[in-house]
């Protein structure tokens, strides 16, 4: 029976990195709000626009810009909460690992000395205390994230833009249940005015399919029928066939991914791997160049397109459930899927080995699991790049662990590169 404590789950380094990204995205959102106000003013001035219309537009743009700028704070606060939690997570994982190493040593020795037992007892108490602190920190962070994300909805207030957004029946809903905008064949209700119903980004969070669109509908605003058996698809509202009569339809935003090219009538049952994008996928936005072709990017995923050389932080999701992240590939380089690590902890032999077992071996397992959902890279070799902290003792521990792993996974090449000791 093992005397060890369960190591708290989670990836603190990844959390820190993502918190930094969220902070930057908050700043970007704030800048967007500033640009909006500036652009609104510029439009009125450059058009020599005066009168009620100009006043109305200025008010709308000002309110929109203010509301968008206001999101910087909530995103920054969410990032801070997660960053703080990640710090507790690092500490808790280290303390539990340290205790487990001592406990294992005691078990192995059989008759340990009193000093070792005392060390183990102290380490155990420190570990349990750190785990309790971690749980408290997680609860605090969750409360902050919830309250800050709740505050987003009030940012536009009752100004012109806020009122307009509130008046749009489909905005603010997670998904569109059938019938919200009438059944196919119904005229578009005046309150929706033919506006775009909803927008789902290429990287949706559990998007839900409402209705397949009949193939003979016409109207120009539908991209393709959405098969009912593909999760995470785009929400596209059925457009009634008698839509004419001057109703304006906002153009649908670009939707990338395999659904667009799905050709049901030809017998194509869609992507073989659920929502995983297949080779040849083109699109717009992250991961694609201005001509729609894949280009190296940061933080794209296998639902957007297959990986390409030069990608970084490539996310690999479960093909049947986009809510499950298998892993992220730090770097795609020379056909190799590379995990980058830096070692910053202490370096006793026990700690080196514990670190390798926690940071390297599980990652290799995840990489090899993820490969099968990365079209074109199903048999790609794996790489471990220890960017920092590669002291000789750690190198020995990593080499040994990788050799063991390769024996358990014949046919999966793994290379290891060392950075600064």
């Amino acid at each position, binding site marked *: 029976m093992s005397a060890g404590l369960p190591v708290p789950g989670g990836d603190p380094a990844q959390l820190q990195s993502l918190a930094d990204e969220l902070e930057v995205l908050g700043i970007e959102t704030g800048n967007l709000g500033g640009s909006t106000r500036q652009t609104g003013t510029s439009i009125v001035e450059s058009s020599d626009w005066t009168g009620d219309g100009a006043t109305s537009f200025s008010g709308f743009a000002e309110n929109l810009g203010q509301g968008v700028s206001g999101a910087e704070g909530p995103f920054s606060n969410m990032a801070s909460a997660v960053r703080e939690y990640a710090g507790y997570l690092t500490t808790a994982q280290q303390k539990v690992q340290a205790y487990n190493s001592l406990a294992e040593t005691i078990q192995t020795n059989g008759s340990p000395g009193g000093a070792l037992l005392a060390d183990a007892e102290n380490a155990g108490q420190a570990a349990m205390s750190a785990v309790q602190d971690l749980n408290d920190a997680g609860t605090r962070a969750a409360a902050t994230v919830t309250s800050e994300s709740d505050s987003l909805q009030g940012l536009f207030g009752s100004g012109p833009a806020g009122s307009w957004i509130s008046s749009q029946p489909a905005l603010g809903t997670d998904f569109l249940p059938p019938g919200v905008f009438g059944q196919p064949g119904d005229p578009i209700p005046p309150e929706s005015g033919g506006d775009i119903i909803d927008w789902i*980004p290429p990287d949706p969070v559990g998007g839900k399919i409402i209705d397949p669109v009949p193939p003979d509908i016409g109207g120009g605003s539908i991209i393709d029928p959405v098969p009912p058996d593909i999760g995470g698809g785009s929400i596209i509202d059925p457009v009634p066939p008698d839509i004419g009569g001057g109703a304006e339809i906002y153009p649908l935003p670009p939707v990338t991914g395999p659904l667009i090219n799905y050709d049901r009538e030809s017998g194509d049952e869609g992507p073989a791997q659920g929502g995983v994008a297949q080779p040849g996928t083109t699109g717009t936005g992250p991961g694609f160049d201005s001509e729609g072709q894949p280009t190296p990017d940061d933080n794209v995923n296998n639902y957007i397109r297959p990986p390409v050389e030069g990608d970084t932080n490539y996310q690999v999701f479960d093909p049947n459930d986009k809510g499950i992240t298998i892993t992220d590939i730090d770097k795609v380089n020379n056909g190799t899927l590379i995990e980058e690590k830096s070692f910053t902890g202490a370096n006793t032999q026990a700690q080196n080995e514990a670190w390798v077992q926690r940071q390297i071996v599980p990652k290799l397992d995840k990489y090899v699991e993820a490969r099968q959902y990365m079209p074109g890279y199903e048999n790609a070799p794996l790489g471990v790049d220890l960017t920092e902290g590669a002291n000789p003792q750690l190198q020995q521990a990593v080499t040994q662990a990788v050799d063991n792993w390769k024996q358990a996974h014949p046919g999966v090449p793994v290379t290891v590169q060392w950075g600064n000791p």
Partner: protein
Amino acid sequence: MDVQYLSLTFLHSEQVGRMSQGFTVKASGLDTGSQDMAGLQERCQLIAEYAMATLTAMAGSAGHAGLASALNGASGKSRRWYTGAWAAYGHASQSLSASSKTYSGADQGVANQVSSVGRDGLFGKLHG
């Protein structure tokens, strides 16, 4: 014409008495403004995609059920919020484009009316 400059202040005093206030607008400026707003809308979409992906990835790395749930919830709430902002940018862009077309059409109408006044009105009488 390249720059369509419509002075409805003129219309107010001379032609369209029912208007409460005069106003001026350069229709081509609104058209350009419409494109500017569309550009902001694209920027909004790009940021939104990254923000939601980041929050979802955070949830996957949290290792704490409560925090993961809160982060997933935040991703959904962010999506709704960005969707509202994105649609508002689209609304502004479309409205500017529609106004530009309306004013351009009105400008042409004024030109026709002025031409008619020239033929049949005072100018015509003097030179008829």
